[in-house]
Every structure is written in structure tokens, then in C-alpha cells.
């Protein structure tokens, strides 16, 4: 069952509100960095280190803002990381409860198939490259659709409007060029 835009919009708004009411605004893309840090630190334990002043890192990005990210890497059981894991679990339960995902959709979405055919390799490559550009962009911007666009604009934060302007300025022409069928 898909929600109508009215009930879906109100529910999504309530979730964003509850997050600010009870803890802090929702954001996701930082957790890609934290997960990278966890993997990297597992291979090379010198990446994140404990000093007298607190947790820091040999990587300038993990060490910035007084080692905020380094600290999260050292302790993955923190609010933001657990939030993202729970988000995935919630989605999995929701999909299961509505009868699961169509078999054809598991490989690629219908819109992609209508425009670019059945080749899975092509779709996977596009998704991989898209993922690279999305996360590089999100980290450069300091947030993503959740943190900047939704949480940011909800708080009337100027950075949120700037981000949304950039995102749609690129996304709309790109989609209009790519998806001419279906």
C-alpha cells in the first residue's frame, strides 16, 4: 500500500518533527563516512586514535570539529549510526508487510528498464557511478536530501535552501534528458 501524498506528507513531517523534538534533526549521509572509517580503522587501527584530549584521526576529515567523526568511528553504537541501521530495518519490515518487492524491480526499476533496456550490468554501473557522485556531493555540501533539504528547510536554514536549489537545478534537466519513455 502506497500512502496518498497528503497522509504521506503529514506522516513524514511528523517523523522529522519528532526527531527534532526528542533528539536532533535527521541526517543520513555522514554515516557513509562513519562506515568508511569503521572499515578503514579495522584494516589499519592507526586511523583513529585516543589521545589525552579525546579521540582523533590521522585523516583530516575524520579529525575535524574536535574529532566528532573519529569519535563516532570509535563508538558505532551512537545515535546517528543506530538511527540509519534502524531506518533500514523499518524499511525492510514495511516492504515485507506490503507483500514484498516485485521480482523485476529487484534488479532494476521499471522506469530504467523502459528507457535503457534489460541489461543489469548497465543499470548497476549507473547506480555505482550515481552513488559515487551523490555521496561526494553530499559530503562537499555537508548534508544530503535528509539533512539539508528536509531538516534544513524545515528549520528555515539558509544552507538548506541553497542545497535544494543546487540539487533540483541539476536533477531536473538530467532526469528530463535521461527519462523520455515511461
Amino acid at each position: 500500500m502506497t500512502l496518498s501524498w497528503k497522509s504521506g506528507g503529514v506522516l513524514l513531517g511528523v517523523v522529522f518533527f519528532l526527531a527534532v523534538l526528542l533528539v536532533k534533526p535527521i541526517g543520513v549521509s555522514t554515516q557513509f563516512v562513519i562506515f568508511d572509517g569503521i572499515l578503514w580503522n579495522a584494516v589499519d587501527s592507526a586511523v583513529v586514535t585516543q589521545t589525552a584530549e579525546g579521540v582523533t584521526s590521522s585523516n583530516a576529515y575524520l579529525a575535524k570539529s574536535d574529532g566528532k567523526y573519529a569519535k563516532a568511528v570509535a563508538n558505532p553504537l551512537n545515535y546517528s549510526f543506530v538511527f540509519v541501521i534502524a531506518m533500514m530495518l523499518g524499511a525492510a519490515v514495511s516492504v515485507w508487510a506490503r507483500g514484498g518487492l516485485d521480482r523485476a524491480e529487484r534488479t532494476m526499476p521499471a522506469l530504467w528498464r523502459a528507457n535503457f533496456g534489460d541489461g543489469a550490468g548497465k543499470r548497476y554501473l549507473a547506480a555505482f557511478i550515481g552513488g559515487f557522485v551523490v555521496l561526494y556531493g553530499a559530503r562537499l555540501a555537508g548534508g544530503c536530501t535528509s539533512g539539508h533539504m528536509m531538516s534544513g528547510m524545515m528549520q528555515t536554514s539558509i544552507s538548506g535552501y541553497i542545497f535544494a536549489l543546487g540539487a533540483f537545478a541539476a536533477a531536473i534537466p538530467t532526469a528530463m534528458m535521461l527519462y523520455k519513455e515511461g
Partner: protein
Amino acid sequence: MEILLAIVIGAAFGAVLDRIGASNPTVIGKMLNLTSLKLMKTILLAIGTGSILMFGGQMLGLVDVGHMSVKTAYVGVFIGGLLLGAGWAVAGFCPGTGLVAAASGRKDALFFIAGGLLGAAAYMASFPWVESTGALQGVLGGKVTIGAVPGSGYDGLFSALPGDIAGLVMGAAFVVIAFALPERLNPRGERLARAH
């Protein structure tokens, strides 16, 4: 306690993202090529609802203003937004919905996540260079909201405007736009809708 909240709010967020279709690249693609704006209406209504509840709650003293977290405005926010937008259109996923889609059983989303982890790592590696270009220097006052929200500690871009009232007005504006926006702007969508 905080971990329990992370589980409850996170799970609710993931379930709602699934039920509004935000993790389905077909829905994203049709929103971005302007043939079906239902999800856009959902997003606008959500931002409006969130704003009205938050600023209204603050004015009534029910919501802690200290929970606000405003990010810095800098040139990289716009450039990063452009990059994210282009990738969002190609893949049909943003960071949150990519994870949600993978959890839903979409295999292409796993490739998105792998690309995303590499992209985030590339940013970690290039961060000193990006910082040296000045693209991360605050502009328009840095961490600012439209008007100064009392007690938030953030300045207002327009310092004469009361930030909480501006927030309520913006929230209402988002709700109005959500209702006013047609379901499609691109006439091709109408033709397709008839054909189906």
C-alpha cells in the same frame, strides 16, 4: 535512552520513506522529469508540517529550541547540491533512500551504496584540498536561518525578522505550495497516463 529513540524514530523514518515511494527510482525519475509530482507534493507538505509543528511548539514552550541544528552556508553547499542532484537523477537514489532501497531488496541499490562509500572516501581523501580552495568558507553569515529564532543562538539572515514567526509563515507557505502544485507539469505525463 537515546539509542532506543534512534531505533524507534529511525524505523519509522525508513517505513515512511518506503510507503511514500521515495526509495523507488521510478517515482524519483518521474518526479524529476516532471511527469508525476505526487512525491514532490509529499515532500513539500512534510517540510511544511515539520516547520509548523516545530516553530509552533517552540512558541508554546513545548519544544526545546536547543535541539535545532543549522548547517553552515558555503559555496560548496551549492556545488555539492548540483553533484548530488545529478547523481540522484541517474541512480534514482539519495543517501537515505539508497539504504532504504537496498533493505527493500533492490540489488541495484547495493551498487549505489558501494559507489557511495567510495565517493565518501574520495571526499575524505580530498578534504584538505577542498578546504584550501575556500569553498567551505561561510557565506551569507554561515549558520543562519531566515530570521533569528529566539534562544537558538543562530543569527537571522534578516536580523529584523522574528525567526519563529518567519518559520511558521514558511511552513504555511510550503503547505500551500504542496496543495497548489499540479500533479504533473510535463504534458508528456498526461499522454502517458491516458495510454495506461
